[in-house]
Each structure stands twice: as C-alpha cells, then as structure tokens.
C-alpha cells in the first residue's frame, strides 16, 4: 500500500506544503486527490460534500488542478494550443487559433502571468513551461492547485518567481499545495506544512517557528544522519587528473551542445558543474565516458589522451554514475549481483577467464550490499524491485568499488531520500579524500555547493564562469546559469 489512513485538509486561499521523503506517499496522496488513483478506503470531501473522483477530468470539474513534476506539454505546439488542449474553441470543426490565443491571453492577464500564447513550448525555458502548466490548470478553472516538486528543475531566481506566483494565487483565494522535499523553500513559502512518512500523514506544523532540522527529523522519523564534515582545501600542487581542452560536441538539431569547454579536475578534488537543465551537462558526461564523440578539442586522463570506447575508458580508471539510472546504470530485470557485475563482468572477482565467477560475484555483492546498507541485502533480488534509493546505492557501490581515478557523477541523488542522499554525499567526500578526481554534474545547486571544491557554470554549452569554494555565492551562480553577462570572475588563488 502506498497510503495508509492519510488525512489532509485544505482551506481556501491557503498555501500548504506536503513534505516527506521519496516514497512517503506525497505524490500518491495527490494523485488520489487528482482522480488518478482510487482510494481503497476513506473519502474526499469538497466544500463538505462527499465526492468520488474517478478521473482527472472529474477532479478538474471540481476545481482541482495538478502540475506534474514532469510536464505534460506538447513541445511542438504553441502555448495557446497547449493550454486549450482538450476543450479547444472550434470553428468549422477546427481549432480557432485566434480565439484560443485571446482566451489564453485573458487568463494570463487575470492571474498576472507574462506568456506569449503564440510561442512554441519547445522554445520556452523550463520556468516558463511550468508557468504554461499552471496557466493550463487555472484556465480550466482550478481552484485548488497542486504543484508536484515544482522547483526541482528551476534556478533559484525562477524558484523565487514561482513562489511569488503562488503567493499571488493564494491571495486571490486559490488553494496552492506544494509537494516538495526541499525543506528550506517549503518553510519560506508555505504557511502550513503537512509531513508524510510511510504512507501516513504523521505531523502538521506551522511554518513560522519551525526549523529545517525539526522538519527533517519529522520526515525521517528520528535523528538526522550526520552532516558533511569540514575538510581541507585541495592543495594547489595536486596534479590534474582529468583535463579537457576546448572540447566541442554535437547535440540534437545539429546545434553544438558543447562549444570549447576547457576544464581540469585535480587529484582529490570535487569539481561541480552547475547549470540549468539542457545546457550541455548530459553531453559533457557522455563525451567524457565515451558514449558520445567529441567533435573538437582534446581530453586527457593523467596527461594521456582519453579516447576509445566506454569499456576502454573504464579500463583506465574512469567510472560513471549516470544521470538516467533506469536506462543507463541498471538493468531492471537482472538480479542485484548481475547489476553489480556490470562494467567489471570480465575481471576478478566477477569472472574467471570466460566463466562467470559465481562465488566471487556473490561474495563481493554481499559485502557491498552490507557496506552500503542496501535493502534488501539479497544478491539475488531483482534489481527492478528495489526502491530508487537502493538502486542508486547499488550503482554508487559498483562505480566506487574499483577505486577509480576519475568519477563522472551526474545527478547522483535525484529522487533519493535524506538518508540515501547523505550516504551518497559521504561516499563522494570519501573518494575525494582517497585522491579520486570527482566531476559532479548536478542540477541541484545546493548539492553542488555543498560538495564541490570548485564550480564551473555551464550555459549554452560553454563555461560561463568558474568559482572556487571561497567565492561560492548562490545569487551570482544563479545569474551565470541564466547566461547573464558578467565581468569575467576573478579567480582567487585556489583554496
């Protein structure tokens, strides 16, 4: 069961946040409210009246709208077309585009959005696409607006803007429900916070007077894992392990996804790559790991050209924690021990000549499952049956176990709960201490700032700026992420 006797009460004009770890049931509860799932027990009342919401259509008819984490927009249609999709104004049986634009403009004006109804959705920034989703819900008459992890893909500036929109809507009498696991922003935007844990609503607190730590403990149901320890700065004498010189690579639509990217990662250093999604991060990881060919420039590992297949590069001590776990990092129908062997299936302890070393594989897997506290600790469990967090622990264990020289880490904690996030972070810090060169590519700016010794900001496939830890400033990085012109940042002596 995903939910167990969960209760939720929403008042008019209220800004409520629902928090909880991944899998706590936040999204499930909202999906019940949005008519996507039917509850086995319990009831939903709107304005005192008991209702049955059998589909999102019925929920919308009752004034409940939802903006999903992954947008449900048609990229190659205009804003207006996306908003009216499903109940288009028609003329001679066809879409009356002019009237659609007028309607959408009217909705935008009423709620204070600035959107061009004629723009193609694929040309909009992520923040604007989200606004399209919100307008879509409002246009259909939503009075209760559910936002599922709305800031996951936004820059700090875009997030602030979103909070402003939410406050405005609440002031106008709408009810806004935020689903999130980012505690700071929840505390800054919501009035009332509902905490979920293991399918139950376990607590309800006022935002005022609650600290992020208190909230986190409510979510986890106990003491928090220890924070990241303070650490020594990287020695300027540390040798560069990974070096990129003027690397370019193609992307979709024939455009260059990377243009002239130069960067270095030194021994015992975590270098972060910050940026808004789609500014070349995925391509950078692919070029490094050999999944995509560079169209220009050179890559070096310990001074030697880094070329060849993904297998060749693994052989030279470069491992990879990919962004797309389900597609690139794991094979769901296989067992945990088989997944543990991926990438090293040809070498000890996983193989013995052409044969699979069943015992070696079992032992190593059992040991790593224990070390990383993976549940269940069963080497024969089906990988797809593990939770996302436990799957990621397996991936992290596998990629760090061979003591790599370079680790290319992309979005390592996306979708993980607090406990798993802390563990992954501790492991990366430990790899740094061991002397590995870690390239951390993440859309979560907080994560980059917490872990990195140095940060490069990617914008439009170029390095838009470089800052060392002492210069970290969220606002400044946020501006760079949006490509705001800025005088070249002075790079202080590293450390």
């Amino acid at each position, binding site marked *: 069961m995903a*939910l167990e006797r969960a209760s939720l009460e929403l008042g008019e004009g209220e800004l409520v946040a629902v928090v909880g*770890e*991944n899998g706590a049931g936040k999204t499930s509860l909202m999906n019940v409210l949005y008519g996507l*799932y039917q509850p086995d027990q319990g009831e939903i009342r709107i304005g005192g009246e008991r209702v049955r919401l059998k589909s999102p259509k019925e929920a919308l008819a009752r004034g409940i709208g939802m903006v999903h984490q992954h947008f449900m927009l048609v990229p190659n249609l205009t804003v207006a077309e996306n908003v009216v999709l499903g109940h288009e104004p028609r003329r001679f049986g066809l879409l009356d585009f002019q009237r659609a634009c007028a309607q959408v403009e009217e909705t935008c004006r009423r709620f204070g959005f600035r959107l061009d109804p004629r723009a193609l959705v694929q040309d909009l920034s992520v923040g604007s696409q989200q606004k399209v989703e919100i307008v879509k819900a409002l246009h259909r008459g939503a009075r209760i607006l559910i936002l599922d992890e709305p800031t996951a893909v936004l820059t700090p500036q875009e997030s602030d803007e979103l909070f402003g929109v939410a406050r405005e809507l609440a002031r106008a009498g709408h009810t806004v429900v935020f689903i999130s696991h980012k505690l700071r922003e929840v505390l800054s935007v919501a009035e009332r916070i509902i905490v979920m844990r293991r399918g139950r609503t376990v607590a309800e607190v006022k935002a005022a007077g609650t600290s992020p730590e208190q909230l986190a403990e409510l979510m986890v149901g106990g003491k928090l894992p220890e924070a990241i320890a303070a650490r020594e700065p990287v020695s300027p004498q540390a040798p560069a392990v990974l070096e990129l010189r003027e690397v370019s690579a193609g992307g979709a639509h024939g455009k260059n996804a990377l243009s002239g990217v130069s960067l270095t990662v030194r021994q015992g250093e975590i270098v972060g790559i910050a940026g808004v999604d789609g500014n070349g991060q995925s391509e950078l990881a692919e070029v490094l790991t050999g999944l995509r060919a560079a169209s220009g420039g050179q890559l070096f590992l310990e001074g030697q050209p880094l070329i060849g297949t993904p297998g060749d590069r693994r052989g030279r001590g470069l491992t990879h924690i990919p962004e797309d776990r389900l597609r690139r990092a794991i094979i769901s129908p296989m067992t945990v021990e088989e997944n543990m062997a991926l990438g090293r299936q040809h070498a000890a302890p996983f193989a013995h000549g052409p044969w699979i070393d069943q015992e070696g594989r079992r032992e190593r897997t059992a040991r790593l499952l224990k070390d990383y506290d993976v*549940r269940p600790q069963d080497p024969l469990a089906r990988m797809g049956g593990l939770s996302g967090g436990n799957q990621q622990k397996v991936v992290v264990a596998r990629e760090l176990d061979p003591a790599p020289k370079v680790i290319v880490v992309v979005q390592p904690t996306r979708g993980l*709960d607090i406990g798993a996030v802390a563990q992954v972070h501790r492991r990366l810090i430990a790899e740094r201490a061991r002397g590995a060169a870690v390239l951390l590519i993440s859309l979560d700016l907080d994560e980059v700032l917490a872990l990195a010794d140095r940060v490069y900001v990617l914008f439009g496939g170029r390095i838009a700026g470089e800052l060392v830890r002492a210069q970290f400033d969220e606002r400044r990085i946020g501006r760079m992420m949006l490509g705001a012109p800025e005088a070249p940042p002075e790079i202080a002596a590293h450390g």
Partner: protein
Amino acid sequence: MASSSPWKRLTGLGASATPSVLAVGASLLICFLAIALTKNDFTVAVEAYAKMFWGGIGDWPGWAEGAPFTALSRPWGEAATKGGILLLTGLSVSVAFAVGLFNIGAQGQMLVGALSAAVVGAAFQLPALLHLPLCLLAAGVAGGLYAWLPAYLKLGRGVHEVISTIMLNWVAVSLVENWLVVGPLRAEAEGSHSRSGTEEILATAQLPRLLGEASRLHLGLVIALLAALGVWLWLTRTRFGFETRAVGLGPEAARASGIPVQRRTYQAMVLAGSLAGLAGALLVLGTEYKFPATLGAPYGFDGIAISLIGLNHPLGVTLSALLFGVLRAGGTHMQLLGVHKSFPELIQGLALLFIAGRVAWEAYRVRRRKITPLPPPGEAASDAPAVGV
C-alpha cells in the same frame, strides 16, 4: 536472504513456469472439447487423446500386453525427430531474444542450412566420422551467415529485424525451393525416371539411428539436446552470455558499462542462425536424406511458439519442444478417428495465444496500478535512517 535458498529458487522457477503450464493445459482442454463437440461424442475425444499421447510417448499399455519393443521405439523415433528439430528452431528464436532481437527468420535460415547439408552430404566421399560433422558444420555456417544479414541490416542500416527476417524467409524460399532445388541442384533423372529434390546424401552423411532400423530415433536428438545444454551454459555461465543478456535487457546500460553491444548482437544472431541451420540439417540428414521438392513443415515458424511457451529459457524451450514433438508425433494417429493430424499444431497455436494474451494483460495491469508499494514492515521497525520506497 530468503530468496537465495534452494527451495525458494525452486518455487520461484515453478512460479515463472506456471503461466506456460496453464497455457498448454488450457489449450489441451479446449482442443479436447472441440473434438468432443464436433464429433458429438465424448468417447471419440478421449480415444483421440489417448492415441495422441501413446502415439507420442510409446504404446506402453500395448507393450505391457506383450507387443514388441517397436511399439515403444517407433513412437519415440517420431517424437524425437520432430522434437529435435523444434528444439533447435526454438533455441534459435530464444538466442535471438536473449540479445533483444525477434528472429522471425528461423525458417529461412533452416532452409539454407538444410540445402547446405544436402549438398555437402551428396557431394563428398568421406568417412562418416568426417562427413557427418562436415555436413552439420556446413548447415550451421550457412544458417549463421544467413542470419548475419539481418543483424548487419539492423546495426548498420537501422532496418528492423522483424521486417528483414520475414523478407529473407521469402528470399530463401525463392532461392532454395523455387530455383536451386528444381534447377541447378536437382537430382539427375535415372533413365526415364525423373526425381524430385536434390541428390540423395551418402550413407556416411546420415545421422545414425540409435534404436535399430524400426525406429527413426537418431543422433539428431542428442545433437539438439547438446545444443540446448551449450546455449544454457553460454547464457548463464559465461561472461559472454551475461553480456549478451545485458545487451538484450538493457542496451543503453550495457553500452555504458563498456560491453561491445554490436559484437554481442552479431554473435547472438549468427548463433541463432546456426541453430536454425542445424535444424535443417537434422531434417535432411536424419529423415529426408535429401532436400525434398518442398521442405513441408514450417519448423522455423514453430520455433517462435516453442521459444515463447518455453519462456525463452533453454530448459523451458527443451521441455516445450519435447512436449510438442510428442504431441505432433501422436497427432498423426488421431487421423484414424477422423481427427485432423494438425490438431497438435492447433494446441501449440492456442498456447502461444494464451501466453501472448497474458503479456498483454500484464502490460494493462501495470498501466492501471502505478502506486508504488511500501517496504515490508520489517524495515519500518528499524531505527536506521529511512531508506527509500
């Protein structure tokens, strides 16, 4: 570590085999009812089924009442002949499945394999110890090369293998049956007596019979079983098989972990073709002793059903091939009661339909139920930092 215990593994195996067993059982039942209803006589159906089973596994009641050993060995021979060929084409399809390809082309690969075996079997004068392996090798190589083509078209040109293998089946039929066998490779007429098919193979190329001349049980079954064992070892025990399965189940993850995806795909597809080619060799070297005017049964297509009913697993494929070998061998005996001999194929087809139906049903259910389950209660009790769901 509950699921590591042998008992759990056994029950797990049982659980995964259940749908196939149910599908076959239901098909047997439906065909039984079909016979009973169309003949309007329950006893005819009972008798027909008895004939089918005893005709496949041997007439044990007859033997117990003093019938000669051939009452057993003759049905065994028929079942083994058909079962061996079905096993090889079934393996062919399942090996391609392992790497994620749907090999509809086993029929064509079998045809070129059969022709190669027939040509080599008739053309060379060699001791049996060399001749027979050479024929098998020729069939395997021909089938393998014929399967390399769709693999190349897929990897090099992006042509879907279902399309290319279906088309190559027709190419094989046209090339082999409509031209070579009736044209350049046709057996020479004996005086005024014209002969169909290719020249007969020499005795040294024939698969030796194992239970005397009365039974057609020949070495082919042993070859097919060895092939199944080999495929099982390769897929489950070697790192190459592991890499092959990884490519089939998660091509992107396989690529990211450094597995040579293209090489494994070529290898698996060529192996699939070789197995189908060997099936053709069994037909020629074991029963026909030449490439006949037409090859008759579409064993290559049957391989798809055999593989799916056997869950694409070498052991399952072996069991399903042997079962349908038995049913088909016995099916001919049902004709005595006026029941068409293709009934076992109907059973096989229905079973396939049920399996396909189950796949569709599960896909439907997965779409309906997307709520993620909570972890088992044991975890909730632990006070360690919570793990995700």
